[in-house]
């Protein structure tokens, strides 16, 4: 494991999970698994002294350093990071906003492919995360299960024979497992069926949260489906609930909505996504809401075969790399909001104009 003093390695790359590969990746952006674990013998974070936190951090770090095959893992001391760097890790989905904004000793270990990360001293002593591209929960879980076993090693986790893994918040107790699938659902949004679809699922133990716009307002069209309960079901049962019972149904509805839109008015749709691509590749100043709105349309256009010279991976990457801290890290300096609008437009142009013909290195 290496102590990372700056984030330059991460800035240059982008995560595995953004590749736009994996099952159902036209609709499913990513599959994420998160486990909450706490060390026995220490209070939960809320009641930890500064000294307790330092001890927890040291104990876990020592444990991680002893792991085989962890030579390339980057260890980042979050407490000593500048705000823009913490924000960068949040945008990259490698750390939570909670840990970014907390105080005291806290850290994250990140693998070079950005498939997994281990947060230390978040709401729980340990938060393990595995992220895969597309709908790929089973293999993400298998990776997580091994990671959990390896890290546990000689650490003693707080565990109750009846309640399972003990967590600071009772909403996570038991398995400590949160399974989340990020979906891109522009078809259901355009056909105004999204609420109906989710309402029909309210009796199932899942939580759906989404980002969308009103009427002609900007739209993101992204929705995250997660398990609501963590106690009383095995990990496999929770994976099945989200990955086999709920998500495939939503995917099915989204495909039908897209088919309907294509049949009803392919020309209108083509016009809409082409204009979106036009704005993104010619604008001189653009906000992040507007960027998301048009990127969402372009992404659907690419997946429907209406736009053929842009890669889904490029679009996925642009969603992340056009966010404020990313723009500032890529530029290597702080930017005001209006500078960011200009820089974002520049960045989009470089990636979308004659896309495909532009080699990666120039970006």
């Amino acid at each position, binding site marked *: 494991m290496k102590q990372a003093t700056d984030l330059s390695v991460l800035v240059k790359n982008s995560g595995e999970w953004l590749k736009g590969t994996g099952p159902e990746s036209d609709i499913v952006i990513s599959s994420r698994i998160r486990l909450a674990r706490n060390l026995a013998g220490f209070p*939960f974070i809320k009641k930890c002294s500064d000294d307790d936190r330092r001890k927890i951090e040291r104990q876990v770090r020592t444990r991680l350093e002893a792991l085989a095959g962890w030579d390339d893992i980057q260890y980042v001391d979050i407490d000593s990071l500048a705000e823009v760097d913490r924000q960068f890790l949040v945008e990259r989905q490698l750390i939570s906003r*909670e840990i970014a904004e907390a105080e005291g000793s806290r850290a994250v270990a990140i693998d070079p492919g950005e498939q997994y990360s281990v947060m230390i001293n978040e709401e729980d002593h340990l938060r393990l995360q595995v992220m895969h591209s597309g709908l790929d929960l089973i293999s993400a879980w298998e990776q997580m299960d091994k990671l959990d076993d390896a890290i546990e090693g000689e650490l003693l986790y707080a*565990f109750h024979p009846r309640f399972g893994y003990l967590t600071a918040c009772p909403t996570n*107790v038991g398995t400590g497992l949160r399974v989340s699938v990020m979906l891109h659902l522009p078809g259901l949004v355009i056909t105004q069926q999204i609420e109906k679809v989710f309402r029909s699922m309210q009796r199932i133990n899942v939580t759906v949260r989404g980002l969308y*716009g009103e009427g002609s307002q900007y739209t993101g069209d992204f929705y995250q489906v997660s398990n609501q309960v963590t106690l009383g*079901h095995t990990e496999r049962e929770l994976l099945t609930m989200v990955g086999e019972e709920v998500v495939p149904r939503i995917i099915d509805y989204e495909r039908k909505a897209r088919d309907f839109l294509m049949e009803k008015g392919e020309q209108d749709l083509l016009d809409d996504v082409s204009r979106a691509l036009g704005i993104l590749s010619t604008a001189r100043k653009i906000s992040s809401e507007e960027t998301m709105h048009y990127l969402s349309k372009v992404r659907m256009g690419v997946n429907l075969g209406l736009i053929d010279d842009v890669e889904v991976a490029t679009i996925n990457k642009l969603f992340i790399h056009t966010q404020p801290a990313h723009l500032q890290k890529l530029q290597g300096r702080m930017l005001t909001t209006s500078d960011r609008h200009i820089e974002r437009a520049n960045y989009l142009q470089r990636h979308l104009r004659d896309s495909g013909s532009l080699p990666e290195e120039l970006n």
Partner: protein
Amino acid sequence: MKCQYCDKPATFHITELTQPGGPQILHLCEHHARTVLQKEAPSPIKTITGALAKQLQLGQTKEELQKLDKKECPSCGITFFEFRNSGRLGCPMDYTHFESDLTPLLINIHDSLEHTGKRPSRAAANVDAQAELISLRKAMEAAVQNEDYETASQIRDKINEIQGDPKHPGYVPPSENDDADSEESASGEGGGL
């Protein structure tokens, strides 16, 4: 329309489709939308206060609840009131100290009380030993605060003794111990079930 949390215009509109309350729409500026979206669990405090309110309806009297609010965990010192307000417990022992008080809450949230999933490979922690360690650490800090270094060092020895005993459930292997000088105990394996 203005953001619910500040004076900036609301450009994001987020639906929280949580059951059983039905969809809830939040109108937010860019900054607050990010804050909300990047938070993990949808408002655990709301889940917890909701569940507790239900308990109150189910026959728990105000007096009983007031009494419960004063109840305190002997290991970490958290009161039930503190927990109720933050939605976060203070230490693993709270699940034991407040077991009967948390039971209806857990049923409300998870509709279950029995963990059926994965178990740690090491000996499922002995509850008393964990409580002891937490209390000792607290007592040691208090002694340091009072500049009673003799008591503090006695407690420290006691902590090290517990952590240095491989058979003790609070055992921490030497490599992870803060005082790296205790090299005698061989390995932490053999926890068994």
